[in-house]
């Protein structure tokens, strides 16, 4: 029987989607197995070892903690105090006031007794001009250094300015409103110092939502999954991405990205790779790609490592509007990255990066929303034409649904194996129900926001890094923040 062109297209699309879907499912299953191996090894290694006794060592390498701040006046003091509670023998904290239009800098000057100092540095990465460098006259804050610079319209520019000024050979990049576990520096430098043959150019750890956690003086005192639905979805998604995904990739040294919320980097490689790209919307992934590229070009036997424990708590967007803005930016960053480094795709010169990480990102991160969207359209067309076999379609949908629940539940189990962060089983259960709703509520949102990001990338729409309108952790500060936000919006 002679087939029409439409039937050929139909056959091709269905075949391609089948291969695509099967590969993705196999990759997830492999990641689950590899991450379990990596987590089990990590647990066995750490079981009997008390790292805290290393805290007094005078030979520990120094680390510069970098946290950029833009219009964070409502929470900046608490945030800086939280960073000052870090426990490590040799570190400095660099806060970059990226041309805030509020009183972020003034508050820090008063609270931490800062004075402007003549500070000489070599600007190895080009940034917007630095207006001044501040140090505290109070020895209690001797580790603190504040940079005031002209706004660079991106986090990347702010971090680059801090990298230029940073003293030590390693820098930890975080967001000023993230809460770090007190031994974060020790935990992240350990994989660097324990590597036998490779040069570890970056390390990272799991991030979680701070939204419903108890925080006292910038320190987490009780971990809870978020009470609100949207941040709770994000908590589950983060666990899947970090504990299952990145741990699995770490096991085969194929980590695609070290999160911008928490990552420790080799400063020399980061500078030689050119620092963060201030034009990128996914600056963390972009830097990682260039660092890896630099390592391959210069024959550096590198490694990027992840650890499964949670060291950083960040506030997840709790409204759809802010969430949309965040995810649009991320997907725009991904498309920028793929476009800029397309030569690495399937390029054996870039080893695992070119043959595993990049193809994975290209097919299963970049193309996934597009293929999904086309799939939905195709489904609707078939329904309209009455060409759908409902029996099979429902069976396949049930399969995809149960498989996605299995993967997310596995991630929660792996997290429980790592550490029992939640106090009660009810809290774990509240997280375990999220995979059931993910496919219906959360996933479609992500797909639409990703497509929005691609559209902005293609049309070159202007976008600034802006304020995330955080609610803050401290109850009083949170109330003030909400009140002030409302007032500001009312004035506008």
């Amino acid at each position, binding site marked *: 029987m002679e087939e029409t062109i439409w039937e050929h297209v139909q056959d091709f699309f269905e075949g391609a989607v*089948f291969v695509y879907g099967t590969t993705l*499912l196999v990759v997830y299953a492999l990641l689950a197995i590899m991450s379990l191996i990596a987590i089990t090894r990590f647990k*066995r*290694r750490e*079981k*009997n*070892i008390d790292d805290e*006794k*290393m805290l*007094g*060592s*005078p*030979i*520990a*390498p120094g680390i510069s903690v970098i946290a950029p701040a833009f219009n964070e006046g409502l929470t900046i003091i608490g945030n800086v105090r939280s960073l000052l509670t870090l426990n490590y023998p040799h570190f*400095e904290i660099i806060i970059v006031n990226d041309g805030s239009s509020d009183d972020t800098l003034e508050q820090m000057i008063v609270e931490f007794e800062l*004075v402007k*100092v*003549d*500070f*000489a*540095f*070599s600007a190895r990465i080009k940034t917007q001009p630095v207006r001044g460098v501040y*140090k*505290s*006259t109070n020895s209690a804050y*001797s580790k603190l250094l504040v940079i005031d610079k002209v706004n660079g319209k991106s986090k990347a520019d702010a971090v680059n300015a801090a990298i230029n000024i940073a*003293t030590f050979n390693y820098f930890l990049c975080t967001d000023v409103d993230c809460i770090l576990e007190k031994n974060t520096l020790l935990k992240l430098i*350990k994989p*660097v*110092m*324990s*590597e*036998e043959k490779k040069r570890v150019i970056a390390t990272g750890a799991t991030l979680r939502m701070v939204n419903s956690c108890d925080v006292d003086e910038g320190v987490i005192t009780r971990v809870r999954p978020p009470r609100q639905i949207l941040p709770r979805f994000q908590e589950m998604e983060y666990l899947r991405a970090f504990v299952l995904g990145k741990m699995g990739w770490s096991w085969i040294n194929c980590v695609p990205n070290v999160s911008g919320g928490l990552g420790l980097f080799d400063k020399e490689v980061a500078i030689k790779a050119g620092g963060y790209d201030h034009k990128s919307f996914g600056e963390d992934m972009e830097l990682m790609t260039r660092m890896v590229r630099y390592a391959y070009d210069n024959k550096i036997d590198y490694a990027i490592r992840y650890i499964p424990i949670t060291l950083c708590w960040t506030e997840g967007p709790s409204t759809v509007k802010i969430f949309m803005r965040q995810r649009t930016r991320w997907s725009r960053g991904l498309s920028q990255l793929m476009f800029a480094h397309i030569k690495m795709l399937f390029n054996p010169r870039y080893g695992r990066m070119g043959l595993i990480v990049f193809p994975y990102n290209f097919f299963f991160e970049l193309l996934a929303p597009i293929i999904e969207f086309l799939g939905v359209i195709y489904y609707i067309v078939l329904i309209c034409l009455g060409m759908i076999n409902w029996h*099979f379609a429902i*069976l*396949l949908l*049930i*399969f995809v649904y*149960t*498989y996605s*629940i*299995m993967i997310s*539940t*596995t991630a*929660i*189990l792996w997290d*429980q*194996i790592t550490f*029992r962060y939640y106090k009660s*089983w009810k809290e*774990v259960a509240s997280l*375990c129900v999220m995979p059931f709703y993910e496919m219906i509520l959360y996933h479609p949102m992500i797909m639409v926001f990703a497509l929005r990001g691609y559209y902005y990338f293609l049309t070159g729409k202007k976008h600034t890094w802006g304020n995330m309108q955080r609610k803050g952790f401290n109850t009083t500060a949170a109330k003030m923040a909400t009140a002030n936000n409302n007032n500001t919006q009312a004035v506008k």
Partner: protein
Amino acid sequence: MLLLEAFFAPFFRRYFYYFDSYPLVIQIAIFLTVVAIVSTVIAYASILYRRYRGSRHDKKIARINPLLDEILTESIILNDDLAEGKPVEEIPLPLEKFDRPRFKTPFARQAIIERLIHYRKNFSGDIGLLLRKLYIELGLEKESFGKLKSFKWDRKVKSLIELTAMDMSIADVNILPLTNSKNRELRAEARHAYIKLSKNEPFKFFDVVSEPLLMWDQLELFKIITTTKDISIPNFARWVTYSSNKSVVAFCLKLIVHYNQQEAVPSIIKLLDNKDHYLRSNAINALGKLKADEAEDKLVQIYSSQPLDCQLEILKAIGRMGTGKNLTFLRQEFLRSSDFDIRKNAAKSIISHKQHSEEMLGELLDTATAENKLILKHCMNPLIKY
């Protein structure tokens, strides 16, 4: 596929009447759906079980520890004989208090070991010795030694930690091979144990070490060496001169600096001719920190042929020595170099010469370019440490 055909197909045939007529893709999808459902249920069960086991463990510990605390406080910490100054060996211990079924399970015995270790970390002197005596008299050391014979490396590590905490001696023949184990954690713990427990030659393993001392190993060893009491500290120059292991040499340089072993200076000076620039820069750093001014002229002499990391260390070393002999050299580097780090370190070293460099500093501040002046002000500011 064989699995599907042999085991699962009959099951599906029973419940899905049309199973055999389905396309293969659908058959696989049905099979994997069942696998996913079963796996999810197993995952839930595992989560529940792990939480139950964890909370049961916590409850058991919460029950046993107060009892142990009571016994240990009464019998060891507030021991009357100890207060009267009776020698530890002659003090009878109330072993009958541990002669209860509750303390005889493997879990309880492990809990006792851990509690004893916890107390020993907090109490030294005679109380520490009495805790050790209790550990031995309860026969707990046999359990720790038993773990050392295990095939599992993590049990061996646990054993070494327990024996080290309780200051139990281990025969060289048992522990020395472990210091070169392929497993990093076991190797590291064996080295720690060897240093802590070997009374005569705690650093003997430096002679036999074949694997490199990783940075983390060095951090741990440094902490242990510098905090262990009654340890006989050798002249580390011995390994600086003879060891073929680069990491051992670098580590010994750090120890030489820590213990201010001036007698090691000639051996370190010899390292300046080493081909490895990593070792050279470590040696220069050590010479600076030891204020070994006899090496100053040689450092200036080799300066121009060194890579950047060594040059920076030379500038820092001259500053630390602070003799004033090479101020002109520092001035020249500060004014002529195009490298920022060289200028900054030269400036720092000029400033650290204090009264020797006052006049030169004044002159430089008057005549330097704006950028160099900024570097000088930066280095002179006491608020800026680096």
